[in-house]
């Protein structure tokens, strides 16, 4: 495989993660890129508007790893929702749940969970991440010529 044959899929995947739709834009699918950008951004913003919370990886609850992965797939935008949830960039709960840091993170998460629309918001945030994950895979397929 030529160097271009390797770098183009990697660049398009990285751009797709960096900004929703950017991978498609790079591959010349400008109209699709604009629609994907608008849809993923709207879903993410609705998540913020509904006070959704980001997931944090907790060793005692393995499913939280999937939630965190879905959040991170949104790209750098995700920093906004994570800061809104935990007031800092935290991706994993400390092993010692009685530590001060762990207690602060858990309290911040519980405060968010008390908001009436939290479930809706969290679902929007997760969906935005999962959509972007599909966009990354789609950009990869287009880049290697598997999809027209």
């Amino acid at each position: 495989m030529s160097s271009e044959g390797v770098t183009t899929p990697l660049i398009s995947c990285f751009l797709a993660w960096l900004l929703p739709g950017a991978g498609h834009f790079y591959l010349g699918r400008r109209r699709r890129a604009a629609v994907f950008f608008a849809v993923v951004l709207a879903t993410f913003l609705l998540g913020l508007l509904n006070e959704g919370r980001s997931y944090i990886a907790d060793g005692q609850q393995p499913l939280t790893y999937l939630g965190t992965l879905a959040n991170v797939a949104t790209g750098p935008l995700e920093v906004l929702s994570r800061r809104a949830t935990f007031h800092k960039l935290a991706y994993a709960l400390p092993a010692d749940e009685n530590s001060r840091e762990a207690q602060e993170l858990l309290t911040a998460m519980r405060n968010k969970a008390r908001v009436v629309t939290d479930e809706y918001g969290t679902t929007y945030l997760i969906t935005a991440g999962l959509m972007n994950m599909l966009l990354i895979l789609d950009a990869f397929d287009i880049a290697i010529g598997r999809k027209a």
Partner: protein
Amino acid sequence: MRSHFLNMVIFSALVSVFFAFLTQNDRRERLKVMTILFLSMVVLSLLIAYAMFPFPLNTAR
């Protein structure tokens, strides 16, 4: 935004548009997929909600 129905409709619309553009290239096909997905999600949700109506969450009340 506290309306369950409005949230459901907006969510369904966003997901329908996303999958229509992701899976279809032809404009007419996109519109068809978008409509089918949107109506499926909204109508099925309403049917499930209606089916659950006789079963209250808290029977102790």
